[in-house]
């Protein structure tokens, strides 16, 4: 035991030195560590260890790729109950949080001049314990506010609070889904967000829930969705007032008037009652309370065309297992509770509880508080009731409506103690800052879904003098009681785990990284009277927000704004607008015409006393009178709170838009929103008529021996989530160049998501990367053979041979080659992230995707060791690995058994610009969203 510890520590230590030894071959020294590093750690070979992503509450499983002791990439853990191998863009980028140059390194105390000063942990602890006692005597209450917390840490916090007489406040999450929880509470007595089993449904209706990007557990939903989509009979409809990534990917998308979702659902519920698969009836009083709509009436109220409504109703009625998920924008307005309730009732009636809607394995949002709670807290603070106020992993100052005056009131606390890693608005208001270790530096566990426990395990010693929250609490307890910390958090956890899973279970847990506990199912019954009460004026007028509205939506890239600080995330453009840096306001084309707004023009948005200036981006597919901006573009937005649910509305109502006359410089990376009929994505009807390049090749054909690497990308599955892009950046040491270069069009991404909009505002996403053409325009023009065709069908780019004529890039029809305009640098310690299998390209060199040739090389190396060929699926590219939908397949085209071969020979397989005769190795599988041979978009 002791020795292993010693080893672990030293493993980390020597890891750091070993890196200098092996990571960079140019380093002038190589190192003899004191002890051999941990078993299985071989310098020069990557190895993986399990952990859990803490970038958002979803709690996806990680397998951390390490080299010489340093984590260099995060990948989704295959087989993990939440994400099963997929990992979203934010998860990928979480590594840049670990290595962020601006992390808080030591405890910091605000001195009398209001400046922060570094202090020792001991000082911090003693200070806190003193003021805990002090304020208790002074009759003040000590409060503990944290972001959503699950698993052992939550229990530890409870212990901490009870021991030190601290009041634990309800957790604060901006997206607490309290309307949904509330509704379920009222109807079924289960105040929580249930688990939706999308995989088992044959009809999915999502109402406002942005399940692909930000809703509850996006990766898990995405995975299940693509499983469902592979089935012929599956259909997916989406209703929302604005345009979200989810909406863009649904089989069909209905644009509902803001706040009128209730009408839609009421109509559907009625239809289901009349002719649907009513497995369990609705109590009579509820049925009576349910308002009646004719198709016409409903369509006129909702703004959805009558035919579409009728069709939806039919499908709903005929579906065997329909699933309705209401949430997000549709449950976050004054009528949100009813929308959620109606969705619940439909599920009840269709009898899909608990088959599809499982309360036993709920998403554990019961404990999270609401904006109402925060309002109360703010009030208490203003009354000066608070002694010590702990603020852990949460940023209310930024997220709460300005009306709450939280920023001001925090100061009234006797001592506000903020835990966090990057200095955010709340931490800046605090008196004492205690730096948290990144989850990759600390022990822990999370329980994102009831019965699913996921392991958080350190892969390296803390880079700075930071502690995990658990350790902080334990040591605080020790400091207060005076006899020092009883145990470290690690031992505390081990004890917990042994208690919970038993000895064997604990080992399995720390080996696999997760445990799924068997749970008894929960039977729920619908409370008729309450349902009736809710239904009475579910669809009453005047509840819905008054147009024009500004919808403040969660962002794919920063969630509720907590990931703003991560450089990589602002480098990767938003898939819908292709804007990378800065804030913008999405405006519908019609409105833009009326107001005379064009892209990049600045518009002044004001409502009530509040106003802000946004650059405009015209967003096809957006309804008139609806404007969209990301939540994190607005600091403490003036949002109202729904009295009943405590949910904050997402709508700024009756806003006024004015032109400021200025034009802002925002990088819109796409040169054109439409593909101008160039057939990059041929529409299904014309798919068969590919422009074949009849002409003979002037040069002899390449023959490929052994391997010909190829890729198949299923456009029907790709939803533009950009996880692949992030993965590519990190895997290949692609530099983050910043806004200045983006404005010049000098982004360096090897892989990009190209959104192309149709006339109806429908959008298709085309992941564009080097096509590894068989007769490649780039190769023939390179004067020095820096770009050449290798025997395995790759267009290899030999960086050190490149002289930088840029001719190859000019001649590339796909424009996927990137030129190093400058010497790109990584601010320390971000350079720790470098993948040592690749060099970092210097100025004046052309670079590009080579199908992660370093991974291919490694696989071939392994294969060669036991003298065989590389097996199908043994090697995959970073993008394919990270893709939550599994849209990308990589493999050997010469092997007829391989998956990629099969896909490349499907009828719907095509290659971009086939007519040019470049013979790419990347096959795209065309076809409507929702997989093979389904109808086009709404």
């Amino acid at each position, binding site marked *: 035991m002791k020795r292993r510890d010693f080893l672990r520590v*030293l493993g980390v*230590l*020597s890891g750091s*030195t070993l890196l200098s*030894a*092996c990571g*960079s*071959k*140019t*380093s*002038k*020294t*190589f*190192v*003899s*560590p*004191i*002890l*051999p590093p941990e078993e299985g750690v*071989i*310098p*020069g*070979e990557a190895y993986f260890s399990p952990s859990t992503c803490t970038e958002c509450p979803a709690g996806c499983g990680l397998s951390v790729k390490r080299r010489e002791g340093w984590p260099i990439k995060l990948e989704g853990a295959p087989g993990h109950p939440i994400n099963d191998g997929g990992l979203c863009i934010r998860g990928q980028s979480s590594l840049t949080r670990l290595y962020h140059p601006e992390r808080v390194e030591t405890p910091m105390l605000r001195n009398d001049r209001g400046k922060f000063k570094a202090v020792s942990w001991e000082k911090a602890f003693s200070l806190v314990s003193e003021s805990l006692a002090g304020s208790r005597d002074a009759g003040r209450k000590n409060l503990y506010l944290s972001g959503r917390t699950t698993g052992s840490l939550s229990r530890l916090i409870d212990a901490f609070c009870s021991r030190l007489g601290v009041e634990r406040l309800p957790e604060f999450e901006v997206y607490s889904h309290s309307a949904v929880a509330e509704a379920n509470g009222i109807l079924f007595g289960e105040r929580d967000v249930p688990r939706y089993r999308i995989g088992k449904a044959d009809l999915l209706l999502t109402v406002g829930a942005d399940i692909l990007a930000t809703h509850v557990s996006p990766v898990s939903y995405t995975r299940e969705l693509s499983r469902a989509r592979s089935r012929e009979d599956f259909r997916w409809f989406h209703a929302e007032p604005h345009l979200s990534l989810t909406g863009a990917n649904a089989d069909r998308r209905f644009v509902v008037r803001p706040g009128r979702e209730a009408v839609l659902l009421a109509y559907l519920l009625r239809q289901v009652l009349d002719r649907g698969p009513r497995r369990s009836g609705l109590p009579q009083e509820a049925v009576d309370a349910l308002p009646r709509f004719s198709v016409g009436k409903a369509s006129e109220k909702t703004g959805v065309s009558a035919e579409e409504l009728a069709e939806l109703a039919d499908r709903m009625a005929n579906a065997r297992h329909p699933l309705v998920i209401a949430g997000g924008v549709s449950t976050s307005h004054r009528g949100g509770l009813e929308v959620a309730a109606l969705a619940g009732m439909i599920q009840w009636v269709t009898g899909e509880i608990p088959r599809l809607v499982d309360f036993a394995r709920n998403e554990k949002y019961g404990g999270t508080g609401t904006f109402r709670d925060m309002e109360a807290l703010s009030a208490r603070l203003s009354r000066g009731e608070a002694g010590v106020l702990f603020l852990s992993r949460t940023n209310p100052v930024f997220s709460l409506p300005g009306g709450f005056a939280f920023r001001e009131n925090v100061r009234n606390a006797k001592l506000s103690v903020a835990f966090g890693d990057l200095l955010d608005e709340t931490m800046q208001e605090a008196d004492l800052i205690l730096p948290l270790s990144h989850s990759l530096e600390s022990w822990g566990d999370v329980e994102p879904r009831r019965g699913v426990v996921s392991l958080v395990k350190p892969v390296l010693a803390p880079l700075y003098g930071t502690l995990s929250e658990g350790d902080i609490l334990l040591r605080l307890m020790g400091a207060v009681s005076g006899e020092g910390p009883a145990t470290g958090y690690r031992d505390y956890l081990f004890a917990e785990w042994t208690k919970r899973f038993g000895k064997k279970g604990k080992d399995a847990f720390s080996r696999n990284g997760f445990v799924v506990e068997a749970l008894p199912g929960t039977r729920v019954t619908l409370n008729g009277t309450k349902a009736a009460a809710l239904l009475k004026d579910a669809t009453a007028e005047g509840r819905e927000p008054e147009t024009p509205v500004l919808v403040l939506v969660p962002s794919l890239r920063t969630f509720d704004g907590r990931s703003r600080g991560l450089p990589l995330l602002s480098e990767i453009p938003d898939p819908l607008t292709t804007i990378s840096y800065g804030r913008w306001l999405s405006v519908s084309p019609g409105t833009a015409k009326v107001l005379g707004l064009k892209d990049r023009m600045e518009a002044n948005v004001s409502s009530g006393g509040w106003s802000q200036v946004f650059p405009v981006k015209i967003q096809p597919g957006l309804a008139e009178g609806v404007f969209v901006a990301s939540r994190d573009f607005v600091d403490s937005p003036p949002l109202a709170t729904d009295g009943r649910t405590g949910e904050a509305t997402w709508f700024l109502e009756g806003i006024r838009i004015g032109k400021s006359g200025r034009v802002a410089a925002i990088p819109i990376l796409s040169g054109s929103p439409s593909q101008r009929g160039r057939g990059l994505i041929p529409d299904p009807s014309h798919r068969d008529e590919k422009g074949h390049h009849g002409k003979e090749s002037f040069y002899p054909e390449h023959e490929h021996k052994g391997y010909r690497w190829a890729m198949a990308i299923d456009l029907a599955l790709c939803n533009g989530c950009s996880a692949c892009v992030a993965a590519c950046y990190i895997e290949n040491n692609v530099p983050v160049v910043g806004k200045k270069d983006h404005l010049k069009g000098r982004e360096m991404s090897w892989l990009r998501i190209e959104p192309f909009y149709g006339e109806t505002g429908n959008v298709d996403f085309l992941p564009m990367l080097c096509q590894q053409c068989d007769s490649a325009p780039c190769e023939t023009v390179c004067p020095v*053979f820096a770009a*050449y065709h*290798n*025997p395995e069908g*790759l267009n*290899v780019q*030999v*960086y*050190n*041979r490149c002289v930088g004529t840029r001719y190859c890039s000019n001649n590339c029809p796909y424009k996927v080659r990137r030129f190093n305009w400058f010497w790109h640098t990584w601010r320390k310690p971000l350079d720790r992230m470098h993948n040592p*299998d*690749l*060099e*970092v390209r210097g100025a004046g060199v052309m670079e590009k995707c*080579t199908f992660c*040739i*370093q991974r291919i*090389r490694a696989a071939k*190396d392994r294969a*060669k*060791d036991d003298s065989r060929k590389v097996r199908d699926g043994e090697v995959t590219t970073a993008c394919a690995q990270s893709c939550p939908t599994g849209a990308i397949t990589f493999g050997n085209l010469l092997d007829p058994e391989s998956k990629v071969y099969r896909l490349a020979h499907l009828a719907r397989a095509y290659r971009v610009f086939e007519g040019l005769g470049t013979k790419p190795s990347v096959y795209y599988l065309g076809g409507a969203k929702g997989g093979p041979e389904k109808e086009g978009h709404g």
Partner: protein
Amino acid sequence: MIAYFGVVFLAMAGLAVAWQQAGLSPDQPIAFPHTIHVSKLSLPCNFCHIYVDISRHAGGPPVEKCMSCHKSIATEREEIRKLTRYYEEKRPIEWNRVYSLPDHVYFSHKRHVKAGLDCSECHGMVGAMKKIRRVGSLKMGWCVSCHRARGAPRDCATCHQ
């Protein structure tokens, strides 16, 4: 005329300096004699360079390994004292590289060892070197001509990344 010869002379001096800088045989923190360990004790190379046949990097011996013998052997010698000091202060030893490749080259010891090359083909008669001295030029021509002569792959991507 004098000027001309002067110039040539300077150029020559420049070359000399450059050669000096090239550092064919840098000093090491501990003057480790391969002569004894390789020739006299005839230890196989991978006794210390533990990773040579399982990884790209040959790697150096963990200090613990050195100590396992030198706890008892030649403990009074100055160099060994240095070694013990490293061990006690838990400082890893930072050897100066004699063979170092630029970042854009991928090289795997493992592959070359498994291909049956003898270490001496690139590293010379290490057993005879009191102080290790680089024998190969490590220039691309040096690699290529050997690859060519032995029919090893010569696709750029085998070595360049």
